[in-house]
């Protein structure tokens, strides 16, 4: 059996759905953040697969941008979560209840 475009796309869609499920179901901020990264990487996989199978390099260049931006986003995000943890001693979404009507 040869591995074709559709195999990559199915894996990518599965990863994306797993990430989304993690964001919805898990209650710990760090785990939610990991799931978000999984979703981004699912998109990267789809981009690279499309790029490889259509002989068009735009997609691979775009992936460089997403990886760089995701790295910046992670550094800011982890710093924020750590700052919140220092203040509240918790990283659970149930405890983020200061802002309400």
């Amino acid at each position: 059996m040869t591995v074709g475009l559709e195999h990559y796309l199915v894996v990518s869609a599965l990863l994306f759905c797993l990430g989304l499920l993690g964001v919805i179901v898990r209650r710990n901020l760090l785990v939610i953040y990991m799931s978000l990264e999984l979703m981004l990487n699912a998109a990267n996989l789809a981009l690279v697969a499309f790029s490889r199978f259509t002989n068009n390099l735009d997609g691979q260049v775009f992936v460089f941008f997403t990886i760089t931006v995701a790295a910046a986003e992670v550094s800011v995000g982890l710093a924020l979560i750590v700052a919140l943890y220092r203040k509240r001693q918790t990283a659970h979404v149930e405890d983020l209840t200061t802002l309400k009507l």
Partner: protein
Amino acid sequence: MNLSLLSHELLVLALGLGLLLVDLWLPVPAKRKLGYVAAAGVGLILLYSLFCVQLPASSPVQYAFGQMYALDGLALFFKRFFLLAALIVLLMSVEFADRIASGIAEFYALMLFALSGMLFASSANDFALLFVSLELITVTFYVLTSFQRARVTSLEAGVKYLIIGALSTAFTVYGIALVYGISHTLNFGLLSGVAAQYGDNKIFLFGLALVLVGLGFKIAAFPFQIWAPDVYQGAPTPVTAFLAIGSKAAGFALLLRVLFIAVPDITARWSNLLIIISGVSILYGNLCAIPQRNLKRLLGYSSIAHAGYLLLGVAALSAAGRSAVLYYLSGYLFTVLSAFTVICLALRGVEGEDVGGLAGLHRRSPLLAATMTLAMASLAGIPPLAGFFGKFLLLKAVVEQGPTHPGYYCLTFTALAGVVISLYYYFGVVRAMYWPGEAADLSPIVVSKPIRLTLYGCIGGMLYLGLFPNGLLEAANQAVKLLR
């Protein structure tokens, strides 16, 4: 490649980096004044843009970076808009500076970096630039939102913005991947040529819808509005103001480009979707604002409603509707920035920014009370202010489309109902200023000279746009000429 096309962005970036450098040699008490330097720099760039940058009549669109970056009338309109917004927000930040414990120079510099992201967004002609500029805005706003690290509310707002923002980023990138996979291009110009033939391709349409999710998050339209009230409430006031006007307008600039430059043939078939999103945003924002006591949270819900009003112009799918969007955004700039400037000054020591904290404002500072009254009247859409004429243009564009689709008439009624509901809570704020229940703190508020000038400018802008709409309307019509 002609680097002078990027002059706005490069100048703003240089200004931001320069501020960070100067900060190293300045004594601590002088750092607050850096905000004036930043504001003056942005003001000079705005003057440069108004008087020195012109598009040659022979080539109305100029490209850079292999057609990724486009400088056209729409881009120039939005660039001037963002520069003006940043100028006012920076002046407001200087007033706010004493409430930020440390790193005030970084605060100003981050605002300038967010501004450069907005300037790039207004010129995006490729999904890569769309994504990078969107992230440049969003990631700087994560930091800005949580800048008051000593306040739990500020941190919590930052974390909420982070999680929902990152989620919308993931949707956007996946959407771009699907659009790219089907059409083999990321460029808006090339995409517009081939989009029509993919009109029935489910994967292509799904990808496009995911991109719209990301943009819907930026403009805070229903059902992606969930973050707005919390973040508006928790963020430092100047950041809230910049989010309310800069971030929202950047979202609209990108939305107009994607819908009317990249895929105009598909947009023409999406009128139902746009009508529903617009109508529900208006109702949701206005109804949820009614019970709010926190003034910033109230304006957060009102900004959801205003995203709905602005979407009226997009849903109309006509040139008149698109120029009405630009006109309404300009009026919204003066209105919302004057409201947040008043909040920044008047609710200095008030816990939770409660509406009751405005009690007796007309005796503490008549100027602030008058500005707030005018801002609320303009948000509600009372003539002769900018908000009235903007809403009139938007509704006119929608009614004109009525004969093609009955949904447009329903949308008009929804919008009018929204306006009536909004009168109640906007005038609740005015009532809290002039008719307080009990005597409150009546110490006079000192309004510094730059802020006084800013407030006069905002009042002037609100009245001018309401009374003499022709000049700006002509400019808006020119700006949207190249959109299909």
